[in-house]
């Protein structure tokens, strides 16, 4: 037993070393079903402080000074939202939590709700005090049963401890929270759709202005913040705005949780200070790209975002830099792509999602995204023309400018950003009728390299359509008119003689 590996602290592993866990601080540390454990981690101290020592305006001022921006997508300054709602005089106001996390592959909100539900509840109560609301709604997707269960437990315990309900901390502040379950519509993550859905109607956006802070839920001033945004609030109250604003970049403060996925060794949630570069996330935290492949691009912002090509790998990630390079923060999906990814195919994948999730209310999104998808299909099936590319770009710009809500306005982003950064690939598809990454099946062809082929006949035996001919010990060949591009031959060949182009 000479070679015992010394135990390494989790914080010192490459995966965690560069992370700074603020929003996720309690996740995996406390038992989320026990309020006492949350309280032991200073839970509900912020609420106590707010109710007993601060005025609503000083709470809003603190959030303003912290520089906290919305983590759900747009990055709107949270304090400004609260200030608007505070300024609006009304007999009734609401605080809403957007927990309708729907970006493919994103699950940061789920982790907070499942691992630290009280952080959200406490922050909502603080928000309620700040704007003068006594009622809150958490709109959580029904596909998160564990999150729902833990929220229900947490709300129950908070009520039992008098941390929700009437006269919280002996003050005259009342606040309670109701859960609402999403019915599976991505668009309900858009704030006005979310409100419409809570009101019991079909989840569809409504025009802004009026903004929710003026006329929101049931026509009353309302603030809507995302789960991760709320997860930062209590610490800002306890540790101060200065502490929070010392983290991050000039205009983006604090940390951001990313759902790291795709062609990367370490996948999962990573929380890093704003300003961390893509390279640090991919190479250090993520451990690089498997199988020695080359990094091609990173997709951020989910279906609303764009692709960041390798040349920007050293850009510090924050709201504004991402927008400047044609993508966006979104809710924090980060998908790494290597040379085997076709960018046209990626654009098509994300667009397919939006087409499916369009609510169908406005014309540009309902019909426009569908037509855009059809153009991409035409391109990837080898039938595209240069005119189609112009038509595609036109349509993208039109949908962006004319759609009713954020979903439609950002739907063309995956197409626009890939078209801007990887135009060659689009051209290759329509002019050369080739998919450079060899992904688009219609444009592929399988060929046998004659000098590598030993004539073992394995490929011709496995071919389900008899497209491969040749005699033993002589190089074989594939009849492209018969080939169905199933790839069985390539898989079977022991000599690497079959390539797809």
């Amino acid at each position, binding site marked *: 037993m000479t070679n015992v590996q010394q135990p390494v602290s989790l914080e010192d592993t490459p995966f965690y070393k560069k992370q700074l866990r603020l929003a996720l601080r309690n996740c995996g540390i406390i038992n989320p079903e026990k309020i006492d454990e949350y309280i032991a981690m200073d839970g509900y101290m912020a609420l106590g402080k707010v109710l007993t020592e601060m005025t609503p305006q000083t709470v809003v001022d603190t959030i303003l000074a912290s520089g906290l921006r919305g983590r759900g997508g747009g990055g709107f300054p949270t304090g400004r939202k609260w200030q608007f709602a505070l300024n609006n005089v009304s007999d009734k106001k609401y605080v809403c939590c957007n927990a309708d996390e729907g970006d493919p592959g994103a699950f940061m909100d789920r982790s907070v709700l499942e691992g630290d539900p009280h952080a959200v509840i406490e922050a909502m109560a603080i928000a309620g005090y700040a704007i003068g609301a006594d009622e809150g709604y958490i709109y959580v997707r029904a596909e998160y049963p564990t999150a729902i269960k833990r929220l229900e437990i947490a709300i129950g315990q908070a009520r039992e401890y008098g941390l929700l309900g009437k006269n919280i901390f002996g003050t005259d502040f009342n606040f309670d929270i109701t859960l609402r379950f999403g019915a599976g519509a991505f668009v309900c993550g858009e704030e006005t759709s979310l409100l419409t859905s809570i009101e019991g109607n079909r989840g569809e956006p409504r*025009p802004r202005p*009026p903004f929710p802070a003026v006329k929101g839920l049931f026509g009353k001033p309302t603030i809507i913040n995302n789960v991760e945004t709320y997860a930062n609030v209590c610490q800002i109250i306890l540790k101060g705005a200065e502490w929070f604003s010392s983290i991050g970049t000039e205009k983006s403060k604090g940390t951001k949780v990313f759902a790291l996925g795709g062609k990367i060794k370490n996948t999962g949630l990573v929380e890093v200070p704003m300003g961390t570069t893509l390279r640090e996330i991919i190479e250090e935290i993520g451990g690089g790209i498997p199988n020695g492949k080359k990094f091609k691009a990173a997709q951020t912002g989910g279906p609303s975002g764009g692709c960041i090509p390798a040349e920007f790998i050293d850009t510090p990630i924050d709201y504004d830099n991402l927008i400047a390079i044609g993508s966006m923060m979104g809710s924090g999906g980060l998908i790494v792509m290597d040379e085997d990814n076709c960018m046209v195919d990626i654009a098509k994948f994300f667009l397919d999602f939006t087409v499916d999730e369009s*609510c*169908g*209310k*406005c*014309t540009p999104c309902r019909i426009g995204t569908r037509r855009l998808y059809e153009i991409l299909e035409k391109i990837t099936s080898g039938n595209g023309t240069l005119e189609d590319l112009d038509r595609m770009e*036109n349509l993208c710009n039109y949908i962006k400018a004319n759609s*009713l809500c954020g979903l439609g306005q950002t739907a063309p982003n995956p197409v626009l950003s890939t078209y801007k950064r990887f135009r060659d690939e689009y051209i290759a598809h329509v002019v050369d009728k080739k998919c450079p990454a060899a992904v688009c099946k219609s444009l592929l062809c399988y060929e046998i390299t004659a000098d590598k082929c030993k004539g073992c006949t394995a490929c011709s035996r496995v071919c389900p359509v008899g497209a491969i001919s040749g005699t033993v010990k002589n190089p074989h060949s594939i009849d492209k008119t018969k080939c169905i591009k199933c790839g069985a031959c390539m898989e079977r060949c022991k000599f690497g003689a079959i390539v797809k182009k």
Partner: protein
Amino acid sequence: MENINVKVNGVSVSVPAGSTALTAARTAGVEIPTLCYLKDINEIGACRICVVEASKARGLVAACVYPVSDGEEITTNSPKLIESRKMTLELLLSNHKKKCLTCVRSENCELQKLCKEYGVEFDDRFEGAMNKYDIDRSASHMYRDNEKCILCRRCSAACEKLQAVSVIGANDRGFDTHIASPFEMPLGSVACVSCGQCINVCPTGALSERDDTQKVFDALSDPTKHVIVQTAPSVRVGLGEEFGYPIGSIVTGKLVTALRRLGFDKVFDTNFSADLTIMEEATEFVTRYTNKDHLPMFTSCSPGWIKFVEYYYPEFIPNLSTCKSPQGMFGATAKTYYAEKEGIDPQDIFVVSVMPCTAKKFEAERIDHSAVKGLPDIDVVITVRELARMIRKAGILFRDLPDGEYDSPFGLGSGAGTIFGATGGVMEAALRTAVKAVTGKDAECLDFLDVRGTQGIKEATYDLNGNIIRVAVASGISNAKKLLEMIKSGEKEYDFVEIMACPGGCVNGGGQPIQPASVRNNVDIRATRAAGLYQDDLNLPVRLSHENPDIKRVYDEYFGTPNSHKSHEILHTGYTVRKKY
């Protein structure tokens, strides 16, 4: 309200704070095209045809819902905007059944008009998959062709906001979104009140009345049939619009001539049977008022209203007057009294109604209480629009027609009958006769102004020789519903209540000429058409139902007295509780 200053395409205007860009533009003399927008009913910014540039907004905004602020500059017609709108139209067309040549709404289609204005050709720049739907012909009053639907949602908004029944709405999502009833039930199987308000607001040919014109043409060319026609009060004020007359024009004379030239054996006036209704209904009311029997009594002229009570408030069925509607009374009298008088077998009498209403088609199919067993009182109902279609098809130059007179014995109608077409009209007509019935003499002033006007709910109290009569009038089912709820809760007590299903009454019925949103948003067609009827009332020699000589004769010769046994057999009806699901 304070005013703010904005500039539209460089023109300065002052508008009330909170005005939309659309209103500001109109104030500046600029028209912005709209499709989904319907003032007060559908303000959802969905179609995006009205996009404009606003100096204080990021990106393009929908003018119909965008509130302008002081000092803001609005641009409505830049090349970029025109291109945007054109593209929106091209996209709509890419999923639209372009059967314009044969469409019922051709030349009266808002989509077609805009495509023409914006120079959109059928070049199929965005050709792609199209949604396929079967035409829903299940309802007795209308068709739905979703392949022509542009999803403006005006129909579902009218159904929900004006009529509070919400039997249609958006189903599915994204490209598959379509308007339908819950669970894809056919319209004929849901609790639709058949009012047809959805048709009136549809910008395209997606919704249309069931076309029954061929049945009429067939009857007219059948030598064995004695084909007679009746025209509802508000037809005379609606029909002109189909032939280019200003809204509110009375065209009674030309209407009669046109019908005669179409080949009807007799042309009669529903105003006559409206007077007959008043005789019956006023008498019924006086009896019920005296006996305190199921008050308030509700009028029963509006078949959409009747269907609404049967579906949604069956507990109020005993409160409904048992009188058939004027349409029903006409048919019943035609197949009994008239048949006898003229010596024609009722089987050979074919009664056509020209109505401002789609629900009348449904009403005609209620044959449980028809006057002659086994025969419907009414054989075919056509709307004003269908009549216009028939006139055009027959090559009759409507505007050139000489004025004609209705035929006897149902050719005289009083002013009281004519105002049946407007909300409050039935009440006013009934009051004119009730005053006589209760006090023994006619009212000094025949104009009961309290019950006139387009407000959704009106109320008044009258003292007739110490009898206090509390009346209310509502039009539009959503207002009727409000009123019913107030009555139910005891908040309000009335003796006599008039309800019309369509907002503003029959002048705005679901069978009236369709005015595009560009007109509806700027002209109160209800008030303008009603004004025409009230003018007609003033011009008529007889303004009281009980003084109509044709009415006196029909009682003398046949029914005896109002609410006699015979009139109960023929002129009254019963109602059914209907299950919503």
